[in-house]
């Protein structure tokens, strides 16, 4: 059942169009990521949903009713900001209980709720501390607790983990996912980190230049990106120019069999991890093998990134195999073109 629907949101600032017909929806209890580069309008979208900014046009429908006319303080769509923004003059308990206090909830009920949140977020023994006495991770947890305390209808997370270091970030992601699943809170997570989006969401809305380029499950978006821009979001890809004719992809490296509709001109997108590197010496006698030279190598522990040059074109290859090719070494590349995605020239955006 659709809980929240964002319909045709448009917003301009100073004549610059920030949001252009933004459309997506979230089902009850789901978590949707809004993925995009910095400054492309993600935070603006959240603020419009929360009522802090007004959109130029469009609608926001919660539980099948438009909430545009409801004032910001009554919407129960809480944002957890990137820089926690805890109230510096209140301690942990009071920060968490702030929303409850504003709503006039009785003190005894408030106390219980705050205690519940504190144990949920493992903030025991920090109740009386002030924000400046807390570490970054603790502050972010308090900010999250402050939002959860008022049992929001929709939880909006605005890049809440980007100011934390890696270990903490992973911990927090797990924590948020657990809580989100446990409490079944409809959540929107704004992020520019592709891993986070893939790992945490039920669906991803990829935002490019103020528009939603693709809105789908993580698997679909990663395996079948709708355009090169969306594809590039999830890591650099390889593009080979050519055309498809009757199930054959023709390019300067040869002709390969694919199961794709005919297209005059376009590019075949091949993911780096789908390219196999083979020793030059072995003879495979297969047709979709190319000869190349390793130009660059970056060791990443569990993977190795290579740049391999084939007939003047550079291919990015990610290999998890423990074959160690050195710079300058000759190698063979095996590409399964049937797993590629073909974009026609008009589709590039």
């Amino acid at each position: 059942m659709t809980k929240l629907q964002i319909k045709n949101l448009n917003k301009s600032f100073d004549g610059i169009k920030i949001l252009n017909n933004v459309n997506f929806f979230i089902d009850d209890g789901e978590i949707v990521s809004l993925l995009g580069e910095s400054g492309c309008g993600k935070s603006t979208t959240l603020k419009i949903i929360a009522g802090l900014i007004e959109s130029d046009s469009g609608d926001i429908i919660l539980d099948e009713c438009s909430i545009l006319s409801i004032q910001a303080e009554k919407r129960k769509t809480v944002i957890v900001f990137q820089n926690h923004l805890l109230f510096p003059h209140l301690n942990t308990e009071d920060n968490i209980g702030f929303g409850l206090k504003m709503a006039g909830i009785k003190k005894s009920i408030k106390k219980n709720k705050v205690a519940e949140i504190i144990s949920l977020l493992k903030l025991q023994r920090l109740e009386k501390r002030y924000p400046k006495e807390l570490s970054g991770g603790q502050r972010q947890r308090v900010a999250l607790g402050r939002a959860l305390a008022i049992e929001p209808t929709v939880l909006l997370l605005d890049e809440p983990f980007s100011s934390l270091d890696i270990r903490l970030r992973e911990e927090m992601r797990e924590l948020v996912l657990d809580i989100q699943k446990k409490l079944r809170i409809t959540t929107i997570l704004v992020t520019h980190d592709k891993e986070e989006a893939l790992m945490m969401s039920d669906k991803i809305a990829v935002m490019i230049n103020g528009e939603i380029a693709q809105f789908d499950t993580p698997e679909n978006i990663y395996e079948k990106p709708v355009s090169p821009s969306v594809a590039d979001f999830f890591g650099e890809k390889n593009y080979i120019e050519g055309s498809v004719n009757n199930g054959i992809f023709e390019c300067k490296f040869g002709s390969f069999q694919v199961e794709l509709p005919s297209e005059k001109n376009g590019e075949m997108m091949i993911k780096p991890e789908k390219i196999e590197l083979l020793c030059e010496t072995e003879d495979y006698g297969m047709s979709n093998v190319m000869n190349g030279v390793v130009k660059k190598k970056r060791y990443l522990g569990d993977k190795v990134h290579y740049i391999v040059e084939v007939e003047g074109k550079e291919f990015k290859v990610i290999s998890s195999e423990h074959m160690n090719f050195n710079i300058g070494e000759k190698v063979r590349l095996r590409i399964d073109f049937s797993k590629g995605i073909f974009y026609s020239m008009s589709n590039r955006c």
Partner: protein
Amino acid sequence: MKKEIKPYILLLPAAIVLLGILTSGIVIALSQSLGYMPIIGLRELTLKYYVSIITDKGFLESLKFSLNISLFSSVIAVIVGVALAYSMLINKHRKSIEKILYILPIIVPHMVAAFLMFNILSQSGLLPRVLYYLGILKAQSDFPSLIFDRYGVGIVICYIWKEIPFVAMVVYTFISNINESLEEVAVNLGASRRQFFWYVMLPLSWPSIISSFIIIFAFSFGAFEVPYLIGPTTPKTLPVKAFIEYTNPDILNRPYAMALNVVLAFISLIIVWIYDKTLSLFCRNV
């Protein structure tokens, strides 16, 4: 070694000037108040001048008068000043109005401010004339005397006129630097504008509010020009009384005058102490 003394060296000129001059003044006042004035032959130290101060009814009246005026004007100035600062924060785009608001009353020296109040509030001032013109007042003498009166109303209004913009300026500068996003956060969590003001903005502004209160309180307590110009003959405020005793031609009166001055300075020091304590109480966390 050099690094550690550096701050002290930097502070040296300021310390010499302030410490040197202030303490020398106090020391001399103190010694003369205790009766040590070799020039006129008094060499014995005695507390009799202090005793006569404490037992003097006039002194107590002056003290009460000074405290009342200062307290009343400072409290009103702070309340209105904070409201004004908040209004300016909400209407942030009106840059030009801010300048007039802050700057003019601060530029106008106190004696001129006293003169302005005289022009408006005396029995022949603008206010009674306007009231007379509107028919509310029938005769000049019907207008209550607000200048030279026993309650110091003119003095209080004069201080308020000068101090409200000062408080507004200090508080405004402070609160305009508070992170604007805090208001978004509060509203997002369900706070109305009034709740935001009471539970977030006000607590965060306490340091500047208290700071400005103490400054204007202490200033009005120890000020000379305004009560001298538009204050009553009795009771006099403490600084005026101290000055008048000092200018007494009878030089044997000098120790008494000095004792008054020392008491005045002592009360000021108590105010500083209270300032320090309340500020540290309120500002641990901000």
